[in-house]
């Protein structure tokens, strides 16, 4: 490969993974990563822990500062305002221009706002960037009451953050249960119960009408569509995120919601690529996936794949494997592998088991006739990624998964094993006679997995 200057805009997981992987495959390429947010890469998903006092900002940086120089990845903290695609030039907020040979756009997302009346008031904000966190710190200093709008991942995180500082939270969720457009009903209800358990004033089926302020332009409350007024000193708007491509609109770059790309992350312009949250596939990678993938893991995989394509002769299309994701709702961990839609499709069967304490649950979706495993949801129960990646890829029948369930658990040692009860319940519901594996005393004594 000839020496080329690869410039990446955005130092999130997509951009940084791309930079690191390019360096691994190509010792000579010049790599520059530009971000206005922070100089160094940090874990966006960890922002909440800074607010909650679990960590400080430095702890969220996955690599020490010397790492970048050692790997000859140049970092620049700047906002790019204009891109001159014709002359392959970037113009920074301070007027400085930067030349590129290859441009990777990894600009991420920004909070989605839908023009609610009053959303410009002081004390009203979304949460995505480091700057948002600093603003939230300022906006919530010494306050007593807050309203969070939006029953998704960022909404519940924000509720947890505020609650950790003893701020009373009213949580407005449009749906009948928390995140029930993604989670099946039982799981959504479980999380809703857990939110209440944490003292959050959860309002389901409730939509925001407007945000009200005082003469100082300071938020004082919200009004719901049912005309209920709720007083508060802070409003978090967390109904979702949208690609952060404002500065690319009205350029020759093809965009829709995000920057339009093909399976090779190519935009309509030569030597310009887009990855991560800001990118929108013209055609989704496969039938179960969306055109815009806005999770950490897909950002990482897209970064890996593009780096490969930028450094190898024969580019390959992006082909993600079995879908997986995870989250933590207050104290309940959630993992999912494969396809578990909120509404069960016609050709699928499902089996759901929940522990009496209402905080541990597992769901298996499988095809109606072939009984091939399609996906799994787990709550309060850590599962082994490798196990389900194999099971789903290799199209195991659900019986085979059940029989090896003891090995699928990733819970810490000495945790109560649930697999016997799950298998028993599965046998009862589906008229099977599966037997859980027995572990010998020796195996238990040495803690053997196999």
């Amino acid at each position, binding site marked *: 490969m000839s020496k080329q200057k690869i410039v990446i805009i955005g130092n999130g997981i997509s951009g940084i993974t791309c930079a690191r992987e390019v360096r691994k495959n190509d010792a000579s390429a010049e790599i520059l990563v530009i971000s206005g947010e922070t100089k160094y890469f940090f874990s966006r998903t960890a922002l909440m822990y800074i607010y909650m006092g679990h960590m400080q900002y430095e702890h969220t940086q*996955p690599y020490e500062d010397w790492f970048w120089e050692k790997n000859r990845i140049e970092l620049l903290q700047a906002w790019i305002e204009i891109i001159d695609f014709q002359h392959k030039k970037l113009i920074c907020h301070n007027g400085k221009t930067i030349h590129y040979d290859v441009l990777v756009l990894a600009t991420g997302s920004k909070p989605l706002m839908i023009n609610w009346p009053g959303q410009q008031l002081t004390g009203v904000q979304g949460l995505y960037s480091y700057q948002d966190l600093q603003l939230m710190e300022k906006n919530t200093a010494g306050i007593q009451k807050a309203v969070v709008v939006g029953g998704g991942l960022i909404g519940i995180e924000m509720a947890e953050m505020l609650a950790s500082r003893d701020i009373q939270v009213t949580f407005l969720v449009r749906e009948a249960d928390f995140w029930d457009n993604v989670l099946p009903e039982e799981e959504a209800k479980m999380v809703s119960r857990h939110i209440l358990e944490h003292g959050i004033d959860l309002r389901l089926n409730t939509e925001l009408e407007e945000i009200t302020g005082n003469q100082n332009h300071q938020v004082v409350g919200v009004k719901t569509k049912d005309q209920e007024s709720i007083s508060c000193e802070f409003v978090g708007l967390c109904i979702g995120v949208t690609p952060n491509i404002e500065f690319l609109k009205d350029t020759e770059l093809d965009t829709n919601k995000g920057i339009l790309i093909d399976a090779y992350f190519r935009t309509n312009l030569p030597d310009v690529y887009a990855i991560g949250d800001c990118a929108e596939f013209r055609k989704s990678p496969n039938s179960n996936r969306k055109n815009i993938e806005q999770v950490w893991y897909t950002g990482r995989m897209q970064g890996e794949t593009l780096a490969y394509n930028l450094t190898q002769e024969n580019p390959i299309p992006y082909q993600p494997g079995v879908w997986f994701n995870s989250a*933590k709702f207050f104290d309940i961990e959630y993992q999912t592998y494969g396809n578990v839609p909120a509404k069960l499709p016609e050709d699928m069967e499902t089996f759901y088991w929940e522990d009496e304490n209402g905080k541990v649950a597992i769901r298996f979706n499988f095809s109606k006739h072939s009984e091939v495993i399609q996906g799994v949801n787990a709550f309060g129960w850590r599962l082994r990624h490798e196990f389900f990646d194999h099971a789903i890829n290799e199209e195991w029948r659900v019986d085979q998964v059940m029989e090896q369930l003891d090995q699928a658990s990733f819970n810490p040692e000495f945790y109560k094993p649930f697999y016997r009860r799950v298998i028993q319940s599965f046998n009862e519901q589906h008229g099977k006679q599966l037997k859980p594996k027995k572990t010998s005393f020796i195996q238990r004594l040495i803690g053997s997995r196999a």
Partner: protein
Amino acid sequence: MKKIQLLGLGLFILGLLVFSTLPFIGDYRLEADIVSASVKTEHEEAMLRTLRPMYGEVYNSNFRFIADFNTLFEEYNEDLKRRDAWDDVIWDDYAFSITKGATQTGVISRPLLFFSISIGLAVLGGLLYIFPLYKGEPEGIKNDGIYFSSMKSRGLLGIITGTYLILFYVILYWFPEYMTNLVIMVDPLSKALSGAEASQWFLYGLIYTLAILVMGVRMFRKYKGNAYQTIRTVSVMFFQLAFAFLIPEILILLNKPWHDFKNIWPLDYSFFYDYRIEGMISSGALGMFMLVWGIILIVLGVPLLTYFYGKRWYCSWVCGCGGLAETLGDPYRQLSDKSLKAWKIERYMVHGVLVFAVLMTAVTLVNYFMEFGLLGQATDQLHSIYGFAIGSAFAGVIGTGFYPLMGNRVWCRFGCPLAAYLGIVQRFKSRFRITTNGGQCISCGNCSTYCEMGIDVRWYAQRGQNIVRASCVGCGVCSAVCPRGVLKLENAGEAGRINDMPIIIGNKSISVKS
């Protein structure tokens, strides 16, 4: 904070204040019979003569008493040294026993009262504070506000606490004569257990054990719902109370040498010292058992158990130093340095201490079997250097005094020779590893932040690599604080345990090796 917790905090501080004031009260008066009772027969005459000017005088402060004692004692020795009468020089340290004998305070007549209003009050206050912790809250990670806490994030309270602990250790190791009141206070308990009077080491052992027990209860509260943490904490509480505290005292009662059956050379660096070996050999069958058991632990116990379970079987389940770190030290675990530089320093230091301990022991044994023909008493010199620099200064003053400044495992990480030995086995021949769960890591950093050994756990987790590190003590907290279920402490087959070039699951396009 609940009222009962405030009360508990108040009582704890009160108890601590009484404890800290006690050394400074009372009168000190020396008489000839005290000297006779406190010194060896061969020194009796000289000491009686040397200390004569102090007899009958009432000192209202231990500082003045000890100053006079030191002046007279040094004068005596200096005079001998000037005259090259080296054989008559007294090397024994009698400051503590003589000061203790001369102490005249209310503590002597009412030791239990003073014990109750100092240590007793602190324990009661601590428990009152701890029991209501997280009451009514769902099970889960309780790390809210740690980095806003002055105590837990090297704020003023943390620095004050560290300074207090350091001072305590300095007095305990090198100036115990200033804490005679505290020792007298625990005399009745010592007599009840072993029949012997208390020493400063009995006092220390008692406080140490109480700290592990009380703060162990805090662990139950904090990690409620985490079976691994609960069982592990029960284990360190049991081993401290039974093996490190009660059994050794009972051995004294039975006229056997003080012995901690779970302490292993080279952490127990004096195990092969001639007085220990002779003590064991001359104590009949039980003494022989101590010697054989100690050697079995070194040559079989450590490699075998570490092979099956990793060094955690000792470091975070059995060991006393580990026990204190995992209970009293838990609030400070996040303060350990995670940098690559710290790791480099750690490897030089901990293995350096191991080499020092092995060489010292080798010289000691050779000398012992050659009946001191080779080096005479020169090994004593080596022992005192090790005892001072490693045994006291490193393990005690820095090891515990620096909890609030550098985290709770400073000694275990940088200094413990046994940890180094266990670590070598764990790194190269063990079934233990922390498995990383495919591609689920989000690089948040909770695991690295809360690793007390300063391992950058995230470095491995985010590249899908199992964590196989010599220093990992297997406390399991990285796994507990992980919000995505990425880490699992496991014992399993050696195949695939060390994956230098891991592949992160999830991307079918290419197989990226980290």
